[in-house]
């Protein structure tokens, strides 16, 4: 029996639905991310003191650092379970082209970790006293930047699959790559708050997203092949 | 802090780091040689 020719779209949809279903049935991971985001963002005013001017200034940076950490903490879940129980190998053997279902997994990761952060950022931003226009720019920056984090994170996770040194190694790989996204994302909101245009920052983030979306899924596939051989 | 301090800290640290790299490299080579000898002894025992 000849295997039906797989397609990018079919593989993408399958992987996305599967990972979303898993996340839905085991909401612990996602809720942890959301809880972490809220707790940490709330800890800063407690630690630094609730001086409004100071909070307004640090808000974009703080929220972005929390977004980065939230993206980072949910990275291992992308491939680890599937790798250890062998389903990743099965998926690699499927007729669907690898970039397809890999992209589906990455999108699922973003929906579970990035979208909650984007949705909650206005609330946290209000807590820090940000003005509506800054909130909007911050949410936009997060919307463009968090998928980049998911894409970069996927590449790092795939490279480090099954390695000794676990979480620390992953941090060493992922966080330096996250830094430019953090800088431009927070910079966009800072610019808006200072009265300058956030357009350069947002454009760079957008360009980064395009390059990442085009180049990284194939890179992740190569990294997975290296891991599975 | 006089300017001499900054110059010494810069050139000095560079010198230290260069020497350290050479020393570590020699240690690595010695260790590699030792591994080869151990491998030879293992084979001689067979």
């Amino acid at each position, binding site marked *: 029996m000849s295997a039906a020719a797989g397609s990018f779209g079919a593989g993408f949809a399958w992987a996305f639905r599967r990972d979303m279903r898993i996340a839905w049935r085991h909401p612990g991971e996602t809720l942890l991310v959301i809880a972490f985001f809220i707790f940490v963002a709330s800890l800063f005013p407690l630690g630094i003191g609730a001086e409004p001017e100071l909070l307004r200034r640090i808000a974009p940076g703080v929220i972005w650092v929390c977004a980065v950490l939230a993206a980072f903490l949910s990275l291992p879940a992308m491939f680890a379970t599937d790798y250890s129980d062998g389903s990743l190998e099965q998926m690699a053997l499927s007729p669907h082209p690898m970039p397809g279902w890999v992209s589906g997994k990455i999108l699922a990761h973003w929906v579970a970790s990035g979208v909650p952060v984007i949705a909650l950022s206005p609330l946290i931003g209000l807590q820090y006293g940000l003005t509506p226009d800054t909130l909007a720019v911050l949410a936009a920056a997060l919307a463009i930047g968090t998928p980049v984090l998911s894409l970069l994170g996927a590449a790092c996770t795939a490279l480090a699959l099954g390695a000794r040194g676990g979480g620390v190694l992953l941090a060493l790989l992922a966080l330096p790559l996250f830094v430019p996204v953090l800088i431009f994302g927070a910079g966009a909101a800072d610019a808006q708050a200072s009265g300058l245009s956030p357009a350069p920052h947002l454009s760079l983030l957008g360009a980064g997203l395009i390059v990442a979306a085009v180049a990284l899924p194939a890179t992740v596939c190569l990294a997975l092949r290296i891991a599975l051989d | 802090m006089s300017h001499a301090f900054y110059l010494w800290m810069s050139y000095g640290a560079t010198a230290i780091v*260069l020497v350290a790299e050479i020393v570590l490299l020699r240690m690595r080579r010695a260790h590699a040689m030792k591994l080869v000898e151990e491998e030879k002894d293992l084979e001689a025992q067979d």
Partner: protein
Amino acid sequence: MNINWYYFASPTTFYRLAGRIAPWAFVLAVITGAAGLYLGLVVAPTDAQQGEVYRVIFIHVPAAWMSMFLYFVMACYGALSLTFNTRLGAMMARSLAPTGAMFTFVSLWTGSFWGRPTWGTYWVWDARLTSELVLLFLYFGFIALANAFEDPRRGDRASALLALIGLVNLPIIYFSVLWWNTLHQGSSVSLRGTSMHVTMLWGMLAMAFSFWMYSVGTAFTRVRAIILERERRTRWVRGLVAGAHS
């Protein structure tokens, strides 16, 4: 004439070649380094604005150049090793990483001690400094990933891919002073000409060449050690040690 381009692609032949080149590379490094230091510390005039402390430039700029250049070469070797599945390409990439990390550290350290008297601060989170720091962590990540697996080949290939991903950081470092209004000064040396005093320029170039030769020396020495470690079960390696003992 048929050139066998793959002749030196085997660890066996490359081991001897590297062994012959490395000492000469070190000799050149010492000679040009001495010349560069002489030019930089004795001949070059005192700077009108910064006085003597500007002489850090003779270490700082060559080290920064090497930090980027070595990463680029390392990524190239990584690409070669992935494309052609050669062991030696990966071994060369591994040999370059520690030296590259060292020069990145030197660049950051000397830059910091130059910044304190001139800008008033040891550190600032501007584009160039931040991306150079990211480069240091990329080196560390490369080394860590390469050594994180039982199977060295897995480490070879994973780290090669990581090096390629991180390659995007190099243009950011290089063009950062052009793209953003940063505290770090723009480039005064380009292919078209320079605005600095001629002895300063030559001192810097001599030091850059010296660092380059030093890197060749260390990389070739290190790759020889790696070849010994990895190929220790082969006859030719065991023969080397026998030769050393007889």
